[in-house]
Structures are given as structure tokens and as C-alpha cells.
């Protein structure tokens, strides 16, 4: 059967590995030696770990701030959806952050935030103020990292919404105009309902992006200062690779897995429902 190689590879490497993580989380393991069954003790430790709550809180901040990406992407899309000469190339340039590696984005923004020579300090200096060292301030650091991560995320939502605006039904817009809708009511009552599916995808991708955030944290702060910018994914990585506590890391991964599973279940249900209705 044609499906076998793909299914086997995916099944073993992705699905089984994910499940194995749950299994490992019940052991004490340094990644090399014998695995020692410890039952739920990793979880007991975890729920007592202040760092875990910092990560969890930061993930929530990521999630909350990332919710800005769809509306901002939509706003940009509305701005760019004009048939004017030069708009095409400008659209393409707006998309660029989307194809940059997160490492690149991280490096670029580390630089923007640099307290002595960054763009931010330049702007603050212009007003005669001193820029805060965002990345070494435990109160601001997560917000600064998320702001950087928003850059490509907004570009992604922009692509989706531009495509959505392109596919609007001309007749429905016409009907709205005949009915006297314009401006905001037109957007709210006639345009947005047609963008429902696009918005749904944009939202889903944004939520997943917020939950799997890792690269930016690793590149920009390594979780610092003093672990104040870690997220679950980063904490798991740190515990496993640097502290050789693979069982503990697996327990964090499992928690992330559960959060994600809830979301994916909701997503798949919504995705597959219309198909079943048609069948």
C-alpha cells in the first residue's frame, strides 16, 4: 500500500514518540543510564516547582498577547487591499518577516532592544529618556520577547486575511451596499462573517504558535534573567538537556501535551464537522 511508508514513519517518530514522553514522565532518568520507576513523583515535584508556574504564567502571557496578531493582521490586510500601482510589491515586502527563521527574528530584535545602541534606546534617547534594558528586566522580558514573536505572526495573519478578502463575494458586498451598510457595519455584518473560516485558521495557528514558543526564548534570553522568561517548552528543554532530568522534562512535556490536546481536539472537531455534514 502506498500509505505505508508515510504512515509508519509518522506513526513511529511523531505519534509514538509523543506517547512515549508520557511513559518517560513516570521515571527518574538521566538520559543515559537505567530508568527508575518513580510513579507520579515527577508531577508532585512539578506542581511544587515555582519555576513551573513562572513558565505557565509566561505561556499565558504569550497566548494573551498573541491574540493581538489576528486583529492586527486583519487591520494590515484592510490597509493593503487596494488595487493601486505598487501595492503588489509592498504586500510582498510586508510578508517578509513570515519567511525569516525565528533565530533571525530573535537576533534582529535582540538588537532593537539593546539598551546601549538599540533602536529602542535611540528612540528613548531622542526624548531624553533612558531606555529600559528590556531583555534583562524580569518584568518586561517576556513581553519584549512576545512582541518580537508577534512580528512574523502578524505577517502570517496578514497573508491569511488578504487571501480571505480576495475571496469575498462581490454580490454580497453589493447586497450590503444596497441595504445601506458601509464602513464599520459593513465590516461587522457582511465582511467578517465571510472571513469566519480564515479567522478560525488564523486563531488556531496563533494559539498553537503561542503554545509551542521556544526558539525566540532560546535565542533572545535563554529563559533569563533568572528564569523569568521561560515557557513550558523551554523549561522542559533546559531540564532535560542541561540538567539531565529527562523524566522531569517529560512530565513538563506531558502537561504541555494535555493543554495542546484539549485545543487540538476542539480544532479537529470544528474542522471535521462541516465535512461530515456534507457526507
Amino acid at each position, binding site marked *: 500500500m502506498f500509505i505505508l511508508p508515510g504512515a509508519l514513519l509518522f506513526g513511529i517518530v511523531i505519534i509514538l514518540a509523543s506517547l512515549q514522553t508520557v511513559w518517560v514522565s513516570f521515571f527518574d532518568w538521566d538520559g543515559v543510564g537505567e530508568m527508575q520507576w518513580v510513579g507520579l513523583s515527577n508531577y508532585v515535584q512539578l506542581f511544587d516547582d515555582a519555576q513551573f508556574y513562572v513558565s505557565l504564567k509566561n505561556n499565558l502571557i504569550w497566548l494573551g498577547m498573541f491574540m493581538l496578531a489576528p486583529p492586527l493582521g486583519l487591520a494590515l490586510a484592510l490597509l493593503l487591499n487596494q488595487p493601486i500601482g505598487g501595492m503588489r510589491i509592498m504586500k510582498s515586502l510586508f510578508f517578509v518577516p513570515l519567511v525569516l527563521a525565528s533565530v533571525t527574528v530573535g537576533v534582529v530584535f535582540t538588537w532593537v532592544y539593546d539598551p546601549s545602541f538599540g533602536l529602542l534606546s535611540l528612540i528613548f534617547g531622542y526624548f531624553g529618556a533612558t531606555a529600559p534594558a528590556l531583555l534583562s528586566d524580569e518584568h518586561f522580558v517576556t513581553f519584549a520577547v512576545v512582541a518580537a514573536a508577534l512580528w512574523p505572526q502578524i505577517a502570517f495573519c496578514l497573508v491569511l486575511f488578504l487571501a480571505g478578502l480576495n475571496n469575498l*463575494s462581490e*454580490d*454580497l458586498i*453589493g*447586497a*450590503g*451596499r*444596497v*441595504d*445601506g*451598510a*458601509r464602513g464599520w*457595519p459593513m465590516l461587522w*455584518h*457582511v465582511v467578517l*462573517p*465571510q472571513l*469566519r473560516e480564515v479567522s478560525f485558521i488564523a486563531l488556531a495557528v496563533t494559539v498553537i504558535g503561542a503554545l509551542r514558543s521556544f526558539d525566540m526564548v532560546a535565542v533572545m534570553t535563554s529563559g533569563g534573567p533568572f528564569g523569568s522568561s521561560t515557557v513550558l517548552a523551554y523549561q522542559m528543554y533546559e531540564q532535560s538537556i542541561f540538567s539531565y532530568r529527562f523524566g522531569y522534562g517529560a512530565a513538563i512535556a506531558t502537561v504541555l501535551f494535555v493543554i495542546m490536546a484539549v485545543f487540538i481536539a476542539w480544532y479537529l472537531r470544528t474542522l471535521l464537522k462541516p465535512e461530515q455534514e456534507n457526507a
Partner: protein
Amino acid sequence: MASVEIQNVQKHYGSFHALNDINLSVEEGEFVVMVGPSGCGKSTLLKTIAGLETVTSGQLLIKGRDVTRLEPGDRGIAMVFQSYALYPHMTVAENMGFGLRMAGRPKTQIDAAVARAAKILRLEEQLDKKPKQMSGGQRQRVAIGRAITRSPDVFLFDEPLSNLDAALRTQMRVELSTLHAELGSTMIYVTHDQVEAMTMASRIVVLNRGRIEQVGTPLDLYSNPANLFVAGFLGAPRMNFVTGKVVEAQGRSARIVCAGGLGVALDDLVQPAAIGEAVTIGIRPEKLRINDAGSAIAFGGQVRLTEYLGRETILYVDAGDLVTTGSDSGTGAFTAQIGEIRPFQTAAPVSIAFDARDAYLFAADGRTISSPKPVARL
């Protein structure tokens, strides 16, 4: 006062002239149907009346008010779209009441207007449904209901029946005509279907290449087409056209010879013909007689194909060098329509005949210079 007044309207897309100096006056309560081949500008014209397209120059008046620069919602019009264009996320009632809601009317007033429209269209049971749960015919009724709810000065219809199947189309045609009689409102209706135009219109506007070719009542247009285009566009099967040359001309009379040596003498021309002018003779399929001796003009041919339509027979006949132009069969064969069922053998020789008084004559520039007499009047 005219309900809709279109004055010198032009619409250009770059160098393409979609509408060329359109002038039309629609009276209160008229049902005007605009027909023409696709790309003739009929939909563009309707959209400029609606305000969905801007005009390049010219003026639009609705009930004497200049609406040329007004938004569609402020023009006092309502429109029914080919695709129905119902808001998919709203119920039938919400769809129908949306215009009034946007106008800030109180809810009781909206509900009353929706209920009234629903009653007219027998949609009372469907008000809580979503468009997706309805059939095409029902959706079209909702779209019409949405227009009625707005109680507009003018109803605009953009090919509203072309997405329906044949049986439903006939039924909706009757419903729309009845609705027009009930409401007595001004309606402007665009279609490419000449049957809809002939059956529903109080006046037909024939458009071609962005220009109005002729305006008139259905029977007037059928009997007295102003030119070759209108003559060919209205009537199914299409009129037979044969080209010829004027060989004799005297006063209001002319003698024309066609290919194969067929001669036709016509008098009562509206303008004198010139000897040597290339003209076109037109004869409707129902005026051609088969194997009927004693007619003035007759020629021989061979049966190519016979279609039996139950109450009538359509016959396609090849007549050698004598060919028709732009015929329905895509060949040079003559089309004859016989009001009864008569069997013919394919390839059988037949004679075709017609009377000179049934023939049309078109000048080289397409204008009609002779029509059949007498003309039928209702």
C-alpha cells in the same frame, strides 16, 4: 414624472466603452426588461442604476432626484442578485430586515415589514431558517422578499432566474409577473433569456455592445425590429437571413436577387434603395411554407434534419447556393417552423416558399427598410 431617468450615461474601463451614451426613461410602475447577448452592458447598466458601479459621465435620476453620486443604500432602490447574495450567517427574517436595520428603523417596524413581505411570498414558515437550509427557489424568494421589505422606489433584478432549473424558472416567472401586478412598483429586470423578456416586460430594451439598439413593447419589437440585430435577437428559432443585391429600384420599390438567382420584389420601403446595394432579406421560420405550391417566391432544397416538438415541427433545409447567415443550426440551412407534426425524410427534396409581404429587408448598415404588412396589434 419618470421613475428612472438615465441621461447620456457613459461607462469606460480604460479604453473599453462598456456603456455608450445611454438614454432611457422608465415610467412609474413599468416592468422594463433589458436584454442582449453576454457582454452587451446590460448588467453594467443595471449596476450603475443601483450605484454599485460609478458612471464615467452622465446623470441618473430616480423620482426626479439626482442620484448619480449617491451610495446604493441612499438611492431608494432594492436589488435581487443572480447569486441571490443572501447573508449566509443570518436567518431569513434577519436577511429581509437587514436594510431597515441599517437604516436605524425600530424593531417593531422592521418585524412588521418582514412579516408583510413574508406573507406576500409565502415565506412565513421559513423565517427562522438559514439560507443554507433552503432550496434555490426558496432562496430566490427570500432575495425578492429582502427587496420588498425595503419598499423601494425601484426594484432591480439581475438575471434572477438563471440559477434555477427550467420548471422552477417558469413558475418564478409567473410569480414575478403577479408580484408586479400586485405591488405596481417600477421594476427593471436584466436577462439574456428572450422568453423572460417577451413574457414579463411592459417594455423591452435591447442592448448590444454598450448601446441601446431599440426600446419598445415585446410585440412591437418582434414585429417591427429597428434593425438586423434586434430582428435576429428576438424570436426562436431565429429569423432566416439571406444576403442579396438590389438590381432594380424605383421609388419605394426594389427588386433583389440573391445567390442561386432567387429574385424578390418588395415595395413600401421606408427609404429608397440604391441599385447595387448589398441588403439582407429576413423571413421568420414560421412564415416559411414547405411543399406549398402557389406561393410567390419559391425555391428547392433538401431536408437536412427534422425536429418534432410535439405540437410543431422544426425543419432544417439546405438550399444549395442559397444560404442563410447566422442561423441557429450553425450551417447555411434554412429553418422552417410548421405548426403541426408532419413527417419528412432526411435528404428528401422539398420546396420552400414565402410571401413577399412576410419578408423584412435590411439595408447595408443593418437598419430595417421594409417590414411585413399588416402588423399584428393587440
